[in-house]
C-alpha cells in the first residue's frame, strides 16, 4: 500500500515537472525518514536521542569518503552509510543504555559535538573547509535528471523506513519496546530482554539516520561540517515526531510534512535563523500543551479516549 502511495507521490511530482518540486520534496522526504528513524527509539522505546545530526552527518561523510575512494553507485553507498551510523549507535548505546535514559540523552548531545570536532579535524574529507562533490548529470540505466534520481532514492528509503516502523509497531519487538517505554523494571521482570531490545532500536534508528544522510553530498554538492551537523537536523529530529505524535508511524510523517513546509515558508518569507527559532518555539509549545502531538489532538476530537 505504501508502494502505491510512493508511486503516486513520484508521479505527481513528475507531472508538475518543476525542478523545485523535486528539490523541496527531497528535503521533506529526508525529514520524514529522519523523524521516523528518531521515533523508533524515541516514541516507541522512550529514549531521547539529541544527536540526530551526528548520525545523519556520519552517513553523509561516509558518502564523501566513498566518493573519493571509489565509484560506487548511490544505492550501495546508502547502506554503507547506514552501517557506519548503525555501529556508532550501537556503540553509544552499549556504553550508556544500561543506565537511566537521561544519561543516554546527554551522551548523544556530547556525541554530536565530538563527532563534529573529529570531522572538522579530518582533512581527507575537507576538514572545516568542506568538500566539493560533483553531482553527475545523468543517471546510469534510468536516464533521468539527477535531482529526480535523488528524490526517487530518498522516496525509496522513506518507503523502507515507514514499512519497517509499521512492521515493528505490530510485532513482538514493538510490544517489547512499548514495555520498555512504559516501565522498564516491570518489563525486565516480565522477561523482556530490555538491553538487547534497546540496542536493536538504537542501532536501527542510527542506521536509518545515516542512510538518510548518505545522498546529501550529491544534493548540496558542497558539504562542510557546519552544514552537515547543522542544528536544524538536531531540533527537527526531535520536534517533528513530538509535534506529529509519537505513538504511531504516521505521527513523524505528519510532523515532517507540516514542520518541513512551515520551515520552507518561514525561511523564504523571513529568514533562516528565525525559522529555527520558530521550530524551537513550536516544539516547546507542543510538548507543554499537546504532549501527544497532532495525532493525539485528532484522537481527542474524534471523541475516543486516546491511549498514550
Amino acid at each position: 500500500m505504501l508502494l502505491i502511495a510512493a508511486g503516486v507521490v513520484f508521479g505527481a511530482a513528475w507531472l508538475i515537472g518543476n525542478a523545485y518540486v523535486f528539490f523541496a520534496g527531497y528535503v521533506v522526504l529526508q525529514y520524514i525518514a529522519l523523524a521516523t528513524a528518531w521515533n523508533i527509539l524515541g516514541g516507541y522505546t522512550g529514549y531521547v536521542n539529541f544527536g540526530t545530526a551526528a548520525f545523519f552527518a556520519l552517513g553523509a561523510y561516509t558518502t564523501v569518503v566513498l566518493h573519493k575512494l571509489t565509484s560506487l553507485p548511490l544505492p550501495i553507498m546508502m547502506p554503507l552509510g547506514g552501517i557506519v551510523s548503525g555501529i556508532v549507535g550501537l556503540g553509544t548505546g552499549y556504553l550508556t543504555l544500561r543506565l537511566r535514559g537521561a544519561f543516554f540523552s546527554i551522551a548523544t548531545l556530547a556525541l554530536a559535538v565530538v563527532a563534529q570536532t573529529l570531522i572538522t579535524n579530518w582533512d581527507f574529507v575537507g576538514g572545516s573547509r568542506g568538500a566539493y562533490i560533483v553531482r553527475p548529470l545523468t543517471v546510469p540505466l534510468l536516464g533521468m535528471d539527477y535531482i529526480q534520481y535523488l528524490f526517487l532514492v530518498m522516496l525509496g528509503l522513506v518507503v523502507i523506513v515507514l514499512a519497517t516502523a509499521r512492521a515493528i509497531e505490530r510485532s513482538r519487538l514493538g510490544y517489547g519496546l512499548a514495555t520498555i517505554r512504559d516501565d522498564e523494571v516491570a518489563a525486565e521482570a516480565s522477561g523482556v530482554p530490555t538491553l538487547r531490545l534497546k540496542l536493536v532500536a538504537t542501532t536501527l534508528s542510527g542506521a536509518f539516520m545515516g542512510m538518510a544522510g548518505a545522498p546529501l553530498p550529491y544534493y548540496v554538492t558542497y558539504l562542510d561540517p557546519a552544514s552537515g551537523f547543522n542544528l536544524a537536523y538536531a531540533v527537527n529530529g526531535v520536534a517533528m515526531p513530538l509535534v506529529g505524535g509519537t505513538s504511531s508511524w504516521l505521527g513523524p510523517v505528519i510532523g515532517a510534512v507540516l514542520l518541513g513546509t512551515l520551515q520552507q515558508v518561514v525561511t523564504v518569507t523571513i529568514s533562516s535563523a528565525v525559522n529555527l527559532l520558530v521550530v524551537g518555539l513550536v516544539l516547546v509549545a507542543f510538548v507543554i500543551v499537546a504532549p501527544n502531538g497532532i495525532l493525539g489532538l485528532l484522537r481527542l476530537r474524534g471523541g475516543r479516549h486516546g491511549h498514550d
Partner: protein
Amino acid sequence: MTDVALLEVTNLGKRFGGFIALQAIELTVRDGERVGLIGPNGSGKSTLVNCVCGTLRNETGSVRFAGQVLDGLSAHERTRLGLARSFQLPRPFNTLTLAENLRIPLLYTVNARPGAALSALEIDERCTELLHMVGLADKATRMPRDLTQIEMRKLELARAMAASPRLLIADEAMAGLSHNEVDDILTLLIQLNEQGVTVILIEHIMRAVMHFSQRLVVLVAGRKIADGDPGDVVRDPDVVRAYLGE
C-alpha cells in the same frame, strides 16, 4: 512439597549508601512449598524480593534457583528460568490494554523457553483464562488507568502468573481486598500450588498468611528473626514484640 531445595538464599546483604537494608539473610524454599513472609513495613521484604529476582544487585551473598547460581543474571533471565513476582506497588504497562499486559510475559518468557512456543491463538486464550482467574475478564480491552487500585493488584498477580513460573512471589497482592476477595486470591494461590508452583506469600493479612503458609519467615529491620512452623513462629516472643503485638 518435596525435599528438594528450589530457592537457596545464602548470606544475602544489601545496602543503600549507609543504610543496611538486608543483613546476612539465609532462606531456603523447597520445591512445592508454601512459604509466608511477614514483617513490619520497611523491614526489607520487598528488597529481598528485588535481590532474588534481579531487579537489585545484592552486595554480599548469593542466590541459587533450581541449583543454578543467579548472581550476575539479569532480571529477565531469572524470570525465564522460572522466577516470577508481582510488585507491591502495581507497575502495569500503561499504554497497553489489560490483555496486552498479559501477552508480554507470554511472548517474552513462556515463548522464550525451550520447547514448543505458543501460537497467537493460544496466547490469546491464555490471556483470557488468566484474566478470568483474577476476575478481570470483562475488562480485557480496557487500559490500566481505568482500573481501581485493587483491580491493578489483580492484574499484577495475573501478569506474574502469565510467566508460568516455578516459583511465584506475591508481594502484598491482597492489600485492600475485601474478605471474599482475599479468599478468592487465596484459593487461586493454593490451586496454583497444587499444580506444582512454589509460592512465597508476602502479606500483612495474618489470617491469610496463617491459612496459607506451611512455613513462616519473619523479617525485621533487615534481619531474619524467625523461620519455621507458623504456629510456633506466631508465639515466638521476639516476633510478637517486633511485629504482632500482644
